[in-house]
């Protein structure tokens, strides 16, 4: 078979395996917090190191997109 740029890369399986592991990890941590096996501080520490990430303006950009979808173009409305 000819080589293709769209051919699945060898690390696809590793990514899927990572997702399976991550699903188990997330389920276990939420359950542990619900049951009181871990403290709120421990849960938040895990959340901040394993789940949360720096968006660098991500939310602001999405809010801006929403404003444009409403027709709230501030530059235009100022000039009209």
């Amino acid at each position, binding site marked *: 078979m000819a080589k293709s740029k769209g051919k699945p890369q060898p690390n696809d399986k590793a990514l899927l395996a990572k997702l399976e592991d991550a699903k188990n990890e*997330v389920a276990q941590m939420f359950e542990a*917090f619900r049951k009181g096996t871990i403290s709120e501080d421990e849960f938040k520490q895990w959340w901040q190191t394993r789940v949360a990430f720096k968006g*660098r303006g991500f939310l602001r950009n999405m809010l801006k997109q929403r404003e444009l979808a*409403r027709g709230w173009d501030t530059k235009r409305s100022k000039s009209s």
Partner: protein
Amino acid sequence: MGHQEVKVVLNALVFLAAMLLDEPKEVSDGAMQMLLDIDSGKVIAHVPDRFEDEVLGGLVEAISKGRPVSAAVFATFLHFWGKFRIHSRSVDWHAEEVFQAALRWRVSYYDALYLVVAQKVGATYWTADRKLLRFLRHHRFPDLPASAWIGDYR
């Protein structure tokens, strides 16, 4: 006498705000607290089916822009997707009613969809968008559901 169910409608931005390290603390804390309450069953979350597109679309965009999104983020989405009450197009909501609501309330189709779901189930619509809330409060449309800023969630 049974206790009254606390119902919320949250949008994709609220869900994602819980995961962002560099957003205002009151926003990420409020969003995190809401997720914990949904997980524990303290509140019941209702979302339109489009929520999935919004969240995953946002994550694809974040990854494409080089943000360090881990597999745990996607796993967290899947965890909560199993807990949400999902409202499907042409079953629980209809394009025509959302379109009409968007024009009536002078908001986007996206805003109207979440507001229509909140109206139908009698939930409060929680958003990270303060400008939208200011707009809705200013215009006082009579048939709008309750809405609130996620930074005020306790």
